[in-house]
């Protein structure tokens, strides 16, 4: 600790703290422009200059580390004069076009001039003008260099945090201008973090341009609905119409950052394909009816299928309260455990349960990245969880976190990693087993003989040798780490080998624990409330609190609390439900907020199965493909139309808030569950969101003691249960079958992660056309080059899209992003076959292809 005196106030601070940090702690305001907490100090704006005793010159407080006994003054006439002088200079060439500047009213330069600036400027010469018309850098970013004050926050944000390096600086001196390469933003993520951190109106959001003044906006703090990172953001609406999103700077996992989906992808709330009124199938067609009519119809149809099986699927984007109520409805009113929360994969709870119970770390990601070694398994974190990726990059670059990557898909983060193990898709389990074996070898077996004896049987194969390259390097790096964090992409669950992968992860984590590396683990989900959906028990084998259905005590507790019986046998997951449908055993299938026809990895099968369900009920806010097959369609409130809580990947429960009324005749999801229960002459109590939250807090151990009022701007962390006794090591994974041809995998791309991003007009504008990605080697071998129209053909079907050659791709891998509306990717896939063997060739005639690709591209 060192001591500092600022304006007469003494404070002890940690060595290395800057004057600015100390002043902030004392509540002494020092104005800044170029300073941004998460970036290294630049010290170029000179607003934060302070007097330090014994120093000849004023010093920039943002970059001056405190030396013990330092005496600082920030409130002298010289400082006042200097600040005023800096602002006077900044204003000299500033266009002062505040009345037509989108930033007016929330402009840091304006605010600063009001607080510290000269009352009048004596500048009377011609101003420098770069251009008279604003420059459209990208579909979402528009620039006015005349207003720029050269704080370089945008450029540094782009390079150091986002890692895109799309923005740069050209020329020097007064001609210095921020721009993209050759005036465009070639490598831009369109995340708009540059716009967010711009203190003035130099970089602006194009979609928000000239739409509102900040003081006209009704702002609501809420959580992003897109992925599981769970970023805090503020929605601005004007007269009920969605206007824009901005970050909250000081709060949430994301602070001032967001990704393109979060910042620009919330306009889906204005999407035109909302379901306006309830609909029922009459003479083969869906016809709009009143809620009463729909109720009568549904009552009748439900009683007709009473004897048959029931099933339910709810989206892991729905808030906790809705998911909780949904499983309660299914379990107590429809008396079934046939419930699931993913249309894309089955969740092998026998392997997942111990992993989550034993290792899931409900703590801030920032803390986890503070561990000196972070292993990211599977997926492509850059595209799936961009803001998580920013934090990981920050860890690698500024906190010396050793980043290790193990995945089939390359990602931008690989460049910052200490070691990368590129695995064949589907062989993740085998690769993890190799890492485990390598770690055993690296650890030496003396002190941990017992553990390893057990494990020896589990790995059941030759130890990994240094020749195994990647796995060995990863093992050595893990061994060198003092504390290890493992981040697991939920993408791994797509594989039919997901169970084995989860088991090997369990082995790895157990071993790391035995080696004293106190491993922390979190999943990287691509859905906003996947962890919440698991916590709420929207799984066939699991009750709320992730307690097995077969756990009598747990079941009894809930039965008592709910005053109803819960079926004692685990139910069917979505995959099995579809099989039951297909064989004519399902009476009613109730789908809430999910579009399996688009997402389930076998379009032909899911279509047939959904068609075979006697009664298909779809409750959604959008007219999805699945809704098109339904017998009854119930219009539900969408994102922003009802309040609740979401649990992000960190286990942080956060308020997602209502900022407008449900559109048209849509009703809140909870109201609809009530409505459906009533049709069965039952009531669900409690039935309001707040009361349900309280019930969750009472009945689910991980939520014990939480109260919604206390979910502050940073939310509150749910709690992990007591760790179960050390489990056994699982046996070796099946040997992956070697594929010689090309195999197709899918996943999220940066712009799309599901049916809400598909409905964002802005995301559809900024996203590239649907594409097929493969390695340069494969492309060359096939005589293909970047930009070619290619056909991807599987045993099931084919699609046409543009080829993107990615030089980081491993040979044999073909990637096509899911969630492109115009690309029915799942028509290529066959269930239980992932990755999917495919052939790729040049499309024959471009003209025909363009027609075949359909309208709307």
């Amino acid at each position, binding site marked *: 600790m060192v001591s500092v005196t600022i304006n007469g106030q003494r404070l002890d601070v940690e060595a290395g703290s800057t004057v600015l940090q100390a002043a902030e702690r004392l509540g002494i305001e020092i104005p800044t422009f170029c300073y941004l907490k998460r970036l290294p100090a630049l010290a170029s704006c000179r607003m934060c200059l302070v007097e330090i005793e014994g120093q000849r010159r004023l010093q920039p407080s943002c970059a001056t580390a405190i030396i013990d006994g330092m005496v600082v003054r920030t409130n002298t006439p010289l400082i006042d004069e200097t600040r005023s002088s800096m602002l006077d200079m900044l204003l000299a060439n500033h266009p002062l076009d505040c009345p037509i500047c989108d930033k007016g009213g929330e402009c840091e330069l304006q605010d600063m001039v009001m607080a510290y600036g000269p009352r009048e400027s004596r500048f009377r010469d011609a101003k420098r003008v770069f251009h008279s018309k604003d420059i459209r850098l990208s579909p979402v970013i528009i620039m006015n260099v005349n207003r720029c004050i050269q704080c370089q926050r945008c450029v540094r944000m782009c390079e150091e945090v986002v890692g895109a390096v799309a923005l740069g600086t050209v020329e*020097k001196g007064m001609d210095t201008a921020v721009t993209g390469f050759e005036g465009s933003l070639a490598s831009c993520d369109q995340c708009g973090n540059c716009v967010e951190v711009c203190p003035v109106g130099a970089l602006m959001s194009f979609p928000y341009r000239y739409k509102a003044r900040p003081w006209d906006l009704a702002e609501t703090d809420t959580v992003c609905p897109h992925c599981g990172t769970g970023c805090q953001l503020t929605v601005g609406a004007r007269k009920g119409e969605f206007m824009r999103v901005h970050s909250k700077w000081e709060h949430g996992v994301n602070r001032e950052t967001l990704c393109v989906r979060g910042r620009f992808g919330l306009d889906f709330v204005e999407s035109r394909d909302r379901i306006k009124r309830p609909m029922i199938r009459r003479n083969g067609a869906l016809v709009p009816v009143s809620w009463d009519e729909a109720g009568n119809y549904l009552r009748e149809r439900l009683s007709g299928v009473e004897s048959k099986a029931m099933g339910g699927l709810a989206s892991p984007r729905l808030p906790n309260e809705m998911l909780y109520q949904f499983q309660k409805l299914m379990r107590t009113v429809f008396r079934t455990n046939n419930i699931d929360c993913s249309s894309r994969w089955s969740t092998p709870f026998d392997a997942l349960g111990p992993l989550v119970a034993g290792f899931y770390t409900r703590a801030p990601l920032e803390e986890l990245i503070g561990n000196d070694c972070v292993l990211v398994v599977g997926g492509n974190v850059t595209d799936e969880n961009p803001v998580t990726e920013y934090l990981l990059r920050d860890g690698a670059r500024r906190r010396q976190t050793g980043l290790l990557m193990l995945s089939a898909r390359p990602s931008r983060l690989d460049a910052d990693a200490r070691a990368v193990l590129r695995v064949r898709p589907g062989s993740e389990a085998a690769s993890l087993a190799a890492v485990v074996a390598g770690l055993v070898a690296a650890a030496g077996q003396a002190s941990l003989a017992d553990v390893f004896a057990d494990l020896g049987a589990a790995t059941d194969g030759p130890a990994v040798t240094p020749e195994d390259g990647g796995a060995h390097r990863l093992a050595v790096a893990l061994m060198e780490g003092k504390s290890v964090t493992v981040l697991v992409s939920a993408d791994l669950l797509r594989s039919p080998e997901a169970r084995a992968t989860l088991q090997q992860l369990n082995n790895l984590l157990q071993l790391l624990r035995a080696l004293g590396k106190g491993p922390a683990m979190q999943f990287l989900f691509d859905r906003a409330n996947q962890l919440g959906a698991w916590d709420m028990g929207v799984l066939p084998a699991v009750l709320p609190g992730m307690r097995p259905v077969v756990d009598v005590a747990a079941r009894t507790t809930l039965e008592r609390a709910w005053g109803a019986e819960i079926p004692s046998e685990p139910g069917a997951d979505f995959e099995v439900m579809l099989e039951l449908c297909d064989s004519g055993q399902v009476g009613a299938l109730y789908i809430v907020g999910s579009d399996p026809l688009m997402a389930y990895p076998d379009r032909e099968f899911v279509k047939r199965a959904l068609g075979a369900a006697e009664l298909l009920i779809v409750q959604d806010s959008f007219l999805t493909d699945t809704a098109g097959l339904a017998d009854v369609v119930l219009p539900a409130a969408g994102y922003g139309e009802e309040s609740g809580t979401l649990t992000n990947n960190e286990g942080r429960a956060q308020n997602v808030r209502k900022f407008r009324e449900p559109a048209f005749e849509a009703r809140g999801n909870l109201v609809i569950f009530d409505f459906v229960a009533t049709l069965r002459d039952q009531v669900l109590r409690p039935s309001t969101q707040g009361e349900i939250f309280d019930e969750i807090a009472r009945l689910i151990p991980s939520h014990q003691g939480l109260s919604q009022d206390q979910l502050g701007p940073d939310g509150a962390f749910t709690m992990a249960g007591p760790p179960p006794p050390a489990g056994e090591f699982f046996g070796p994974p099946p040997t992956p079958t070697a594929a010689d041809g090309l195999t197709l995998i899918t996943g999220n791309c940066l712009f799309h992660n599901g049916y809400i991003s598909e409905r964002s007009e802005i995301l559809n504008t900024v996203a590239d056309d649907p594409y097929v990605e493969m390695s340069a080697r494969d492309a060359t071998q096939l005589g293909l080059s970047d930009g070619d129209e290619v056909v991807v053909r599987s045993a099931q079907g084919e699609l046409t899209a543009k080829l993107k050659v990615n030089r980081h791709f491993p040979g044999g891998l073909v990637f096509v992003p899911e969630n492109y509306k115009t690309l029915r990717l799942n028509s290529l896939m066959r269930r239980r076959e992932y990755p999917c063997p495919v052939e790729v060739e040049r499309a024959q005639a471009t003209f025909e292809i363009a027609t075949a690709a359909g309208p709307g591209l």
Partner: protein
Amino acid sequence: MFEPVLLRNVGVPDGHLLATYRAGGGYQALAKALHEHTPDEIIDLVKNSNLRGRGGAGFPTGMKWSFVPKKAAKPKYLCCNADEGEPGTFKDRIIMERDPHQLVEGMAISAYAIGAETAYVYIRGEYTLAIRRLERAIAEAEAEGYLGKRILGSDFSFVVHIHCGAGAYICGEETAMLDSLEGKRAQPRLKPPFPAVEGLYASPTVINNVETLACVPHIVMRGPNWFRGIGPDKSPGPKLYCVSGQVRKPGLYELPMGIPLRELVEDHAGGPPPGRKIKAVIPGGVSAPLIPALGLDVGMDFDSLAAAGSMLGSAGVIVIDDSTCIVKVATRIIEFFHHESCGKCTPCREGLNWVVKVLRRVETGQGAPGDLEQLKALCNGIFGNTFCALGDGAAMGLRAALAHFEDEFVAHIEEQRCPFNEKHAGRELLGSYG
């Protein structure tokens, strides 16, 4: 008569060739350093010589070297600052063009002292002859074993690379130079960390000026006491003075540190052209505040000039006679700094732009009451508040012009014209810098 040290080969035919250099005793200092001294002893020699950096700041060279960590995990680098961009300065150019081996030998000894195996010479791109000659000298030295692996049978290996600048004055600022060497936009870096600890490629780095390095072989051969015997003890040694402007014999002069400015200008350089009187002299490149004629008795060394409110800087001595308009001189100089500002910090970027606009108005007879106050206020806003010394230098120069020649500024504003005869005005003097 002072016997030249640094320039002794300059007049010799083929002075730039190794054979000539060797014939005059060249590379004996390197041999002596490698065979008779440890690196630490060389640092001590240089420390004891009181050699101060000739690039402008005058920092003690031996002390700078001693800041380099003895044990570092990363390689150490020596950078030679040959980006001689200060208007009025042409001393390094002559060394590199006429006697490049002197620099090569100086670099080799310095690198040995600090434990560097690689040096980069960051050389001004316009110095085409100097670049060619230095390239040739490096090749010759490599061929003869003065550079390369195990030099002269010692364990010391050392290579020199040349990097050509692309015309930005700011690259002469040592940390901006490092960024430029790394392929980045040249802008000064935040200090600390200082280059000696974290410089080029975040490795320990020493940056020395050409003339500084050229002094090193002589110190090794003739000893620190000889060096200290030349000029003032705290700022000793032979010194290259670049005299330009309105004098009869402009040129490069090697004389002891500390000789009076008047002696340099009036005796050695022949004084002003016939019929003219000296009005002011800029003693150390345009960053140095001008000294009016009355102050010419000041000694040309770091401390004396600092005491007189100016600085030795790069010893680019620019003589201004009474036919020249000081407002024009000031405008040209500020235009230069404005053009060369890297744009990083607010006061330098915005402040100089404002100053230029006002000065141009005043100079062309469109000044207004209040302009001088505005200029002074801008100088206050710039001086001491800029990120590096560029903006400070500009503000100091303008302040000095305003302080000593306010009447000329006032006359421009009151008469709404330049009172000097255009024919004799600034262009002739400083045309190439505008």
